[in-house]
């Protein structure tokens, strides 16, 4: 049983900051704030990411009218997590998590566990990703003239923070499925969608099995950042398992950008991607009664740059959280 169920975990407030390209995308109007400057008046991209988190967390706490938080879960893509640099200012017990792009569901899920089982009042979860910082971390220098492969995805510049609490509100987190890491010998780092699709499939199936649900019980199931190819692959796998999709499956990486007109190859990726779409778009859809219950399956490709160069394949993971209107 890898699915945990929660009875009184509510969403108190949330905030999203995105970059310029995301603001220009189809979901642009859903996000709270945006920044056109990738540096955010900081000297480097990594420090810009810290600053973006700082702004986002401050505003989220202000919206939730919470003076103090009891526990914080956070994560990002930079080595040794750049959120640690922000943590010292927040003056609360802090846990840094790494699940690559699955950080969004991972942090929210853990925060929900803390509210439900540790009986904490306010628990904060936040994640971020920054295009240029991630590019530098995982690929090439930003100014290096390399033609990206068509199957690659572009990292989303976004930071999202959500404050969970045990006080009643309109949205609640009801279950969290912790995924297991799978490795099906996909080794192309330019094509992470394919490596992550089996992980997403497995987590969705585990979630359905544990709770005895099917697609009929959800208004929408979104995968984290599979991109165009990974999404097509996931749809085919699910249809093979004899489930009716009925337009109930989508992908955050495809939703956040206009992949036909924006220069993003197969779609968006990074932990900011699923976090921004969940907090920006899906929460608003839930509140406006367009939807009742959704499932976010955040996928992450857990590759290490050195080990990939040593020709090892990409391990990947997917965690799922279910959010409902209460």
């Amino acid at each position, binding site marked *: 049983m890898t699915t945990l169920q929660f009875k009184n975990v509510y969403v108190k407030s949330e905030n999203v900051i995105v970059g310029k390209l995301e603001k220009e995308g189809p979901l642009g109007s859903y996000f709270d704030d945006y920044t056109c400057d990738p540096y955010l008046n900081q*000297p*480097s991209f990594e420090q810009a990411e810290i600053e973006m988190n700082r702004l986002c967390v401050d505003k989220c706490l202000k919206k939730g009218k919470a003076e103090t938080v009891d526990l914080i879960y956070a994560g990002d893509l930079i080595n040794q997590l750049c959120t640690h640099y922000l943590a010292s200012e927040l003056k609360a017990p802090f846990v840094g998590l790494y699940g690559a792009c699955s950080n969004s569901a991972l942090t929210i899920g853990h925060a929900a566990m803390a509210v439900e089982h540790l009986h904490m009042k306010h628990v904060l979860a936040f994640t971020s990703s920054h295009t240029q910082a991630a590019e*530098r971390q995982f690929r*090439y*220098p*930003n*100014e*290096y*003239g*390399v*033609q*990206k*492969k*068509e*199957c690659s995805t572009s990292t989303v510049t976004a930071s999202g923070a959500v404050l969970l609490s045990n006080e009643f509100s309109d949205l609640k987190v009801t279950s969290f499925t912790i995924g297991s890491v799978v490795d*099906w*010998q*996909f080794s192309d780092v330019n094509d992470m969608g*394919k490596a992550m*699709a*089996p992980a997403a*499939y*497995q987590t969705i199936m585990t979630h359905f099995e544990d709770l005895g649900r099917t697609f009929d019980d959800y208004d929408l199931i979104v995968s984290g950042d599979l991109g*165009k*190819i990974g999404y*097509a*692959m996931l749809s*085919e*796998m699910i249809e*093979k398992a004899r489930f009716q999709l009925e337009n109930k499956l989508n992908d955050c990486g495809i939703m956040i950008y206009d992949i036909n007109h924006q220069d993003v190859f*197969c779609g968006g990726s990074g932990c900011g991607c699923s976090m921004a779409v969940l907090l920006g778009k899906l929460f608003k859809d839930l509140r406006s009664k367009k939807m009742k219950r959704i499932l976010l399956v955040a996928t992450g490709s857990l590759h290490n740059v050195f080990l990939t160069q040593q020709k090892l394949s990409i391990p990947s993971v997917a965690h799922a959280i279910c959010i409902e209107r209460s």
Partner: protein
Amino acid sequence: MNQKELHEISSRHQVNDHKARKALIAFISAGMLAVSGQLLNDWLMIYFSKENAGILTILFFIFIAAILTGMGIYDKLAKYAGAGLFIPITGFSNALSSSALECKREGLIYGIGSNMFKLAGSVITYGIVSAIIFSLITYWVRML
């Protein structure tokens, strides 16, 4: 779900790579670079010796590539031209300056100094290793 089945599904989902278009653009852009280099070289020959004019032309391309890298234009051009810009010497210059620029904040020594050769270092390494090996062999053959 087994591995064979998964890889079979994955092989069915491919993006359109536009390989022919990319190859054509690379061919034309590198060709145009050579023609403009030759034009510059012919003009420089009026003022310099043949050998120096050749060297100056190469230096001119290195200069332009480095400046364009700094201005953030080179990577946007390379997105279209692909190999048309990394096979000519401009790619070498771009690899050096982009790595140096990226690590600027880590300081003069560990940032710019040591990271400059992160990408272009392999070209220098294999250039020297192969040059020494092949020269030794050629030298030995000619001695016989």
